[in-house]
């Protein structure tokens, strides 16, 4: 374990040798974290490295089994997030943890309401909410329910809430995962403001570029331990990743993703095409073609209409305008079952909410879409099911104790593989992957990327939505950039680079010649 060198500012937080076990299994073995006043501190590690557990121990959500926590030099022991908040530690969680049905004001002020004559002073609270939001250059009607605003605004409300508690330490758990570039910019300026005021920030993120932009210090965790702590400028990206993975630097050199080389000759003729798709405000005019054996990437900012387009293609929602053709025939699905019958599969971005059935086993999850095919006269064929399940567990390398393990017990990456297998078992012609590697540790991510490439090479058409630029640029054979519900640009992979894609995402212009051919 390394400790940061003594700097000018005093230690605000000193967590040492924290241990925590769940049902006998160690989640934290020897975790330490030191944060100075006015410091932005990155906390990174793969999924399951223990970042969240460490934070939850700090905020009193979990109780530690051993170790010591000093906050401002005093022993710090809290039993609830509430106590942590009162004592100056505010947390913003990855999934926005606010109450959509209640007003913005309530969401900001709950837990520290302002009173007058013992009763709530609504005017003062509304004013307070407006004042806090104005720091983010957000002017909204704070009386309206939070749920009426978009995700980014909700995220800002969550941050405003945390800051409103006059915290000395703000913990941000992947705060940028639902923000677009501009909003990330606003968030970073707020972080700089906080820093200037002497507030410390613990910043958890998987996006390495962001860390270098905003953080001073970094702590790297692996397998429940702190493996490295250093000043941000002292450690290179490669070193950082290597420390997270516990591997040699050489192994991760070269490409940022694991898609591998593409083979253009394998791409066939157009299988699916959409012209002028529209549905409400989210999708206004989207056209694209997908060829056999091709990975088509959808790039775009949050809210550009990528997921919404995918849902139209898969028949989850119905388009109000435009035509689709599948293998030359007209195609208008009324429900997902129609899309499945046409040979499509859809891996949703919301793995927990729309993907897995947590109480069911790996086998049951894997065969969910396949059920009609493995049943005869409505009776399930157990042996066929077992055969298929075992084959995919083997082929995709799904790490589980067996086909009968509950899927909720698997890691995110393995759950994603189960979902992929669910569709691959259908032997589809077209697979829609919405953020296939989101929230998955680096190792599993690489495996999934390689798998996608392999499948495409075998003739599958893949429509891949990703918010990670390098994933689209390195993975896709053809890139469609969506902006405000319109497909603005089509780029061949060879011609694509970060600058072009970003320009199209931001301005909607660029090499748009091929968009409607």
């Amino acid at each position, binding site marked *: 374990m390394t400790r940061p060198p003594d700097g000018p500012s005093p230690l605000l937080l000193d967590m040492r040798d924290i241990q925590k076990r769940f049902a006998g299994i160690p989640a934290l073995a020897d975790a330490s974290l030191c944060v100075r006043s006015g410091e932005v501190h990155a906390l990174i590690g793969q999924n399951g490295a223990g970042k969240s557990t460490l934070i939850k121990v700090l905020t009193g959500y979990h109780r530690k089994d051993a170790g010591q926590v000093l906050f401002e030099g005093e022993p710090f022991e809290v039993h*609830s997030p509430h106590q942590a908040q*009162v004592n100056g530690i505010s947390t913003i969680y990855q999934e926005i943890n606010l109450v959509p*049905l209640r007003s913005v004001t309530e969401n900001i002020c709950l837990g520290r*309401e302002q009173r007058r004559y013992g009763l*709530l002073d609504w005017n003062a609270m509304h004013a307070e909410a407006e004042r806090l939001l104005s720091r983010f250059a957000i002017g909204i009607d704070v009386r309206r329910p939070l749920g009426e605003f978009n995700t980014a605004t909700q995220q800002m409300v969550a941050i405003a*809430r945390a800051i409103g508690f006059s915290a000395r330490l703000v913990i941000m758990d992947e705060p940028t995962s639902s923000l677009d570039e501009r909003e990330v910019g606003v968030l970073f300026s707020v972080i700089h403001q906080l820093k200037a005021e002497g507030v410390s920030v613990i910043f958890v993120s998987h996006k390495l570029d962001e860390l270098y932009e905003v953080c001073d210090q970094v702590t790297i965790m692996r397998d429940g331990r702190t493996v490295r702590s250093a000043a941000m400028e002292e450690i290179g990206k490669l070193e950082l990743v290597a420390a997270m993975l516990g591997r040699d630097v050489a192994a991760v050199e070269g490409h940022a993703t694991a898609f591998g080389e593409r083979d253009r000759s394998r791409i066939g003729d157009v299988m699916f095409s959409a012209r002028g798709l529209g549905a409400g405000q989210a999708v206004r005019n989207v056209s694209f073609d997908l060829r056999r054996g091709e990975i088509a990437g959808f790039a775009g900012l949050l809210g550009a209409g990528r997921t919404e387009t995918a849902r139209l293609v898969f028949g989850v929602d119905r388009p109000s305008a435009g035509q689709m053709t599948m293998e030359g025939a007209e195609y208008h699905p009324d429900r997902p079952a129609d899309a499945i019958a046409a040979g499509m599969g859809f891996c949703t971005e919301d793995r927990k909410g729309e993907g897995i059935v947590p109480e069911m086993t790996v086998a049951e999850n894997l065969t969910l879409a396949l059920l009609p095919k493995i049943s005869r006269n409505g009776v399930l064929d157990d042996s066929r099911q077992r055969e298929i399940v075992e084959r995919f567990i083997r082929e995709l390398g799904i790490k589980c104790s067996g086909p009968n393990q509950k899927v909720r017990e698997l890691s995110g990456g393995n759950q994603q593989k189960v979902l992929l297998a669910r569709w691959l078992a259908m032997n589809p012609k077209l697979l829609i992957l919405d953020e296939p590697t989101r929230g998955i540790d680096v190792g599993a991510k690489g495996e999934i990327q390689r798998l996608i490439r392999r499948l495409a090479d075998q003739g599958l058409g893949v429509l891949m939505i990703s918010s990670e630029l390098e994933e689209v640029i390195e993975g896709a054979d053809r890139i469609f950039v969506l902006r405000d519900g319109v497909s603005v640009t089509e780029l061949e992979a060879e011609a694509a680079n970060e600058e072009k894609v970003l320009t199209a995402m931001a301005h909607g212009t660029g090499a748009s010649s091929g968009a409607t051919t």
Partner: protein
Amino acid sequence: MNRARLVRIIGTYGVLIALAALILFGFLRYDRFVSFYNVMTLLRYNSMFALVALGMCFVIMTGGIDLSVGSVAALGSVASALASPYGIVPGLAAGIGAGLAAGLINATLVTRANLMPFIATLATMQAASGSALLLAGNQTVSVSYESGFTAIGQGNFWTFPIPAAIAVLAYLIGSLVLNYTGTGRAVLAIGGGEDASRLMGLRTDRVKFLVYVASGGLAGLAGVILASQFGAGQPIEGVGWELFAIAAVVVGGTLLTGGSGSVVTTLAGVLLLGILFNVLNFENGMGWISLSAYWQSVIRGLFLLVVVLLQARLTRRRLNAL
């Protein structure tokens, strides 16, 4: 005014509009509908349901449910009838106390043992019902008329029925708590997202605990009024009260999933369902049609159906806006 706003207003105030329309209908159609006697009788009788519905409303706003209110009211009526010879205060204390005890059990099961509210209060319902029967020895328990206990249910505060006055007071306090205290806002926040509320630092268990205890206490109070009004503690009364209360809360526009609701419109829901029967009785009195009392529940059910369908449309629109 745009359409969405109109929809929202109807969603919130629809029950008030319906109530006003029904009253107007009764006023125009029947001679003695808005007579002093009729109004006071109506208020006196429905005050019990109003109290039960108030507790239910708070429970539902946290995203829970309390199925035990009916049998807890029965238990309260028996307990207060047994204590009635000692006077008004012991009678009240016994009834409310029994209700609070049942509420405590619910609260403990829900917040400490983490049982689903539906199942926890279902169990308490059976337990309260059994206790009421045991306490009453399987029969109704006459209240004492000498001690003045019957004034709670039968007396007037000037000319206003005392039970109705109690209910109005309870609703005033309820409204104040909901809108102007941190606990009240926490009730709604928990219903809107319990995990989120906990992470926001709200003491969710404490608030939920309070809500179930309060619901029990209010059901006990309703039991006191029941015993006092009808002169007997009735261990088998209260069957179906919980569902009436749920219906009133839903009709009042409170979301059954929690997170959104109002005390005032719940009262309107109670009155609406109450007046519906009243209108039916008047209609029968006119002699044009003759609907047996059994039609009441059919009409009540149909009414609930209409409200629920309307709400489904409204909430879907609201969800679409999210």
